[in-house]
């Protein structure tokens, strides 16, 4: 249906994906907190080349963020302790949402809060000010670098389920729960989201990490520990997506260390329907567009008509499957 021909008369692969009843032009989103609210990166990235923009976590009140130092480069990754610095939901709906509404792409509003009620209030405020391309919400229950950043929800199956149920009642748009990798097993969380009626889960958020200045004996980050992201964590993210894929039937949005189309394809094969590009935006502000372009090329070379054909195609040998891998 969406099959078209490119200039060489070859079939142009179809990158469209559907999540719930929302159609995205491609499966590549930019991750919350790594692309601002769109305006910042606009000069460097063709926003309409993205499947969508997940906005920086927004909370009820504006948050100043943590005091410096907020970032530390590590081997193939970085630690951050931004502290959910954000403009607050009022400014978000007044300025940020209308700005993003001008682009032909989808918006997913990421919400962080420290109580059930705050999550709901923020969501309802956005819902009341929705713009046409607002696809839905991503609920951040997994921020490791503020003390009230939702991780108390993210590491507790019951609270995850309760929160999801509550928010489900407040919106018909996409409800996506963003899970943390900082748990023994992601499976029960994925299942809790499914039971509570989420449309999808996204994973992973950052891993708890730390770095120390050996001359001052001080933690390099102001908050002692922070969140680890970037290529270093890709193998972990991929394993968690795979484990979530086996545990539930919700669509999964894969996140973690994606820099190239090849990285994204690993996530599709492991079971993700869409992906988000995070830290890579800091290196190439148009990383998401590059990933989408590379994806199209790969599909063409592999003669695959639809990107959705890749999803959940991991070939695991029968004997390993039987043994529970």
């Amino acid at each position: 249906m969406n099959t078209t021909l490119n200039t060489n008369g070859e079939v142009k692969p179809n990158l469209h994906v559907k999540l719930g009843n929302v159609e995205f032009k491609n499966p590549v989103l930019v991750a919350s907190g790594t692309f601002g609210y769109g305006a910042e990166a606009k000069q460097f990235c063709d926003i309409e080349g993205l499947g969508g923009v997940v906005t920086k976590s927004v909370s009820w009140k504006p948050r100043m963020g943590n005091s410096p130092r907020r970032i530390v480069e590590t081997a193939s990754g970085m630690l951050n302790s931004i502290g959910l610095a954000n403009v607050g939901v009022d400014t978000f709906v007044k300025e940020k949402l209308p700005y993003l509404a001008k682009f032909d792409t989808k918006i997913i509003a990421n919400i962080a809060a420290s109580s059930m009620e705050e999550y709901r209030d923020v969501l309802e405020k956005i819902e009341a000010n929705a713009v046409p391309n607002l696809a839905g919400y991503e609920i951040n229950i997994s921020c490791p670098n503020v003390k009230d950043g939702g991780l108390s929800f993210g590491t507790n199956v019951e609270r995850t389920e309760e929160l999801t149920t509550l928010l489900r009642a407040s919106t018909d748009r996409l409800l996506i729960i963003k899970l943390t990798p900082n748990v023994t097993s992601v499976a029960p969380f994925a299942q809790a989201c499914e039971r509570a009626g989420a449309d999808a889960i996204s994973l992973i958020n950052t891993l708890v990490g730390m770095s120390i200045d050996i001359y001052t004996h001080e933690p390099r980050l102001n908050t002692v520990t922070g969140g680890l992201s970037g290529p270093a964590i890709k193998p972990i993210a991929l394993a968690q997506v795979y484990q979530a894929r086996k545990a539930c039937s919700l669509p999964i949005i894969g996140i973690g260390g994606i820099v190239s189309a090849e990285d994204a394809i690993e996530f599709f094969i492991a079971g993700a329907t869409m992906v988000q590009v995070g830290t890579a935006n800091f290196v190439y502000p148009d990383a998401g567009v590059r990933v989408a372009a590379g994806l199209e090329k790969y599909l063409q070379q592999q003669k695959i008509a639809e990107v959705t054909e890749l999803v959940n195609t991991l070939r695991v040998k029968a004997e390993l499957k039987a043994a529970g891998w």
Partner: protein
Amino acid sequence: MTSSSVPSVVTQRRILAPGLVTLRFRNPNVAHNTIAGQFVNILPKAGFSDPMLRRPFSVYWTQGDEAEIIIQEHGRGTGILANTREGEILDVLGPLGRPWMFDSADYMTAVLLIGGVGVASMPLLTRKFELDEVPLHTFYGARTSSLIARDHLANVHIATDDGSEGFHGSNVMLLRSYLESGKLESPKIFACGPTGMMRAAQSLAAEFSIPCEVSLETEMACGIGICQGCPVRTEESVFAVTGRRYRLACTDGPSFKAEEIVL
């Protein structure tokens, strides 16, 4: 149109002193559009993730389609970059950041206060002042004479820690003597150097009630305002008015009014 990082071939590498080099590269966008005080963000090794992040460098000079940076070897990223050879390709994003606020009407004499590799943004600023015929004094402090990058500066007063050239002591002390003597008419300080020097500049400016702008170096993940990783703390007075506790070094800066921030 969006502009992204551009592969930029290195056309010249000069060694000024051990661990201090300049790299000139072809990048018409940076060469034609940079305003004094802006910076570029350069990837130490494209295609590899250790090191992963870009490194910020002030634009040191521009001519035709080429731009130049000056690199002081510091850690692994600058180590790789400083050893780039002519003909190699750099991945350059920029120009980025806000320029120096040279257009303000609050001064008549430009005072450039330079500490070490803080010289990097001064040649373009000097060119601007010369074009605009603004009287200009440059107070350049360095550890020792051989570490001074002399190109494209004007009316330079040198101070060295070891007394190997010019005034024996700090450039801030030297500047103070000029201020005390009243030799500088309605000056504004443009300062870039180590934090200690910047703090001294901040107090000096307060003491003499003269405008002062400081260009800061903070760690940066993105350089374009999307990571929130480069906060600069604002003074209580600014916070009271704006409600903003922090500004971003990469997009609100790198230079700030000295009285508005906490160093």
